[in-house]
């Protein structure tokens, strides 16, 4: 008897859940009846698939929600990493890709004329530290040479003379403890930005060979290095290990309340990452004029940029699109999305990201006009 009761209850539950979910079939959106574009196609219910950089995922999900409520177009994104995103994009498993690094020159040449790129968001890399003796009000100042030497293992203690010279006010607080340098153990664009900065700003201390998404860190061989997986791994290591230093995306430092160091920029000033310092750095970025162009030189112009108040370590993330899509609805939806981002999306930038300069908004509009479906 008991058996039958339990079995029936279980069956009823399963059927109820299935029916409920089938009935829900929820997608919100299409509040404005004017979801048709100039070509008269109704876009409600179109689903766009994207994949790639983990950096852009939070911002994209915010944009996707607002866009879905307005136009009924669903944008689904998978943060699998820039490389996997590029691979999925080229295999046409997703409609658009997001990649922190732009297409390499070879890849761009291979697909020249059929792929569009736009660096639609920028984000800084911040240096975080965990020194219990320093109060929150004191900000540690570091420059490229100091950080390079720390990650090479040449500067061993926090009270090293070089660091003391950079921080005359806090010199007496710096303890005689070993510096634990935390780096990214996985392949990451953040590492590429950080090492490019070290190479440019350390005047020869950090060699060209050690620039890239995944390198062998000299400090690891000395035994004072720790590899963290992902931004969250580095964040956690820095939080858990006293006397450590690391580099993470800005949003992780903000959300976890980590102490951020002020970095010396090309003009010689120590700056913290803020909206102003980041926008200043972007003013001098060399951005190509059309989305069909080669973007592989953009990193060089954005890191360690000139400017009194520029923050020296930041980088772009790109959206990759085909010029031609077989499905006209998808093409129209993408064009609408790009235009919307250029006109309204940048009002909804969340913490940790920086809206790009005006030139990029024009690029987005240009990209929207380039996409065709025939």
């Amino acid at each position, binding site marked *: 008897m008991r058996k039958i009761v339990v079995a029936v209850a279980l069956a009823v539950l399963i059927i109820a859940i299935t029916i409920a979910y089938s009935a829900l079939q929820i997608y919100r959106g299409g509040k404005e009846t004017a979801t048709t574009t100039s070509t008269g196609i109704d876009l409600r219910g179109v689903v766009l*698939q994207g994949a790639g950089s983990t950096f852009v*995922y939070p911002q994209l*999900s915010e944009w996707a929600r607002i866009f879905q409520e307005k136009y009924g177009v669903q944008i*689904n994104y*998978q943060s699998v990493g820039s490389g996997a995103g590029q691979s999925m994009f080229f295999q046409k498993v997703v409609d658009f890709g997001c990649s922190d690094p732009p297409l390499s020159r070879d890849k761009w040449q291979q697909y020249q004329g059929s792929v569009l790129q736009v660096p639609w968001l920028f984000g800084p890399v911040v240096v975080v530290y965990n020194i219990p003796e320093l109060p929150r009000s004191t900000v540690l100042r570091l420059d490229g040479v100091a950080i390079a030497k720390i990650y090479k293992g040449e500067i061993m203690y926090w009270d090293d003379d070089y660091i003391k010279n950079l921080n005359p006010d806090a010199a007496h607080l710096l303890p005689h403890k070993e510096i634990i340098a935390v780096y990214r153990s996985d392949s990451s664009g953040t590492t590429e930005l950080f090492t490019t900065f070290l190479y440019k700003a350390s005047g020869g201390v950090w060699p060209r060979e050690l620039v890239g998404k995944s390198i062998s860190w000299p400090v690891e061989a000395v035994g004072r290095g720790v590899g963290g997986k*992902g931004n969250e791994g580095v964040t956690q290591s820095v939080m858990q290990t006293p006397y450590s230093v690391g580099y993470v995306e800005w949003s992780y430092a903000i959300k976890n309340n980590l102490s951020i160091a002020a970095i010396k920029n090309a003009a010689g000033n120590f700056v913290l990452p803020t909206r102003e310092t980041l926008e200043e750095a972007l003013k001098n970025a060399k951005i190509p004029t059309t989305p069909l162009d080669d973007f592989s030189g953009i990193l060089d112009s954005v890191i360690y940029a000139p400017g009194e108040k520029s923050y020296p370590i930041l980088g772009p993330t790109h959206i990759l699109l085909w010029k031609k899509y077989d499905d006209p609805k998808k093409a129209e939806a993408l064009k609408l999305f790009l235009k919307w981002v250029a006109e309204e999306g940048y009002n909804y930038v969340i913490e940790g990201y920086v809206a790009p300069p005006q030139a990029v908004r024009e690029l987005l509009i240009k990209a929207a006009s380039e996409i065709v479906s025939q």
Partner: protein
Amino acid sequence: MYSWRKLREKLFTCLIIALSVLAIAPVLHIILTVFANGFAVIAKAGTSFFTDLPPTPLSKEVGGIAPSIAGTLLMTAISLPIAVTLGLFAAILTAEFPSNPLSLAVDAIAKSLASIPTIAVSMIVYTLVVVPMKSFSALAGAVALAVIALPYTYTYFSTALRSVPSVYREAAFAIAMSRWGAVVRVLIPVARKALTTGVLMTVARVMGETAALLFTAGRFRTGVSFSPTAPVDAIPLLIFDYILSPYTVWHQVAWGATALLLLAYLMVFLATKLIVKEVRL
């Protein structure tokens, strides 16, 4: 006088109990952590946790995980029958023909399937299923899950079937039952508790698998979909994405989802244990 045997007995008991406590302490700690963090979230969200879409990073409410629940249910429903059937047949083969070299091969291979890194399974299924279909899908996710689940169903089922004392098989043959008859009407019912435990453990494994779905399922979070050829989300995938982000509201959703998953297991386990009775040999 205290005999050496009695002393050994007492020492043994203490050692065993101590090690068991050590074994179960981390399990308890993590389950309590999950429930402590997760229940607060579910209580705050109420029933909308089951029907809403996941929140954006900056939103104030927790939203819900409806797409993930639907996806997990769908993929479990597709992959479980496949894994159970294949595992059962393989287990019957190795139980009935133990010294056959084919049985040996199947036995060894079924277990070594578990050694493929789960992320590699997802990469392989991506190449074989997702790329030709030009889309992520619940089907691809279910295939990956079935591959992951196979070693478990096989090992549990084969252990269960082999534990049946041979007297029962001999008795069945003695009354002129066919071989299939002996398997279906004697072997499986006698071993049914162990078989059910095997199925339950596999369900738990399948519903909690993360890495195998990374490149196969599609992370479809903007709506609820029951179609096997369209992208879907899964609860462990959601947890994976959200718990590694820096946003508090997403962390809350992740904990709530984990607590929900564990609750679901509890219900299924208890229900099944009530239905399937133990067989005393």
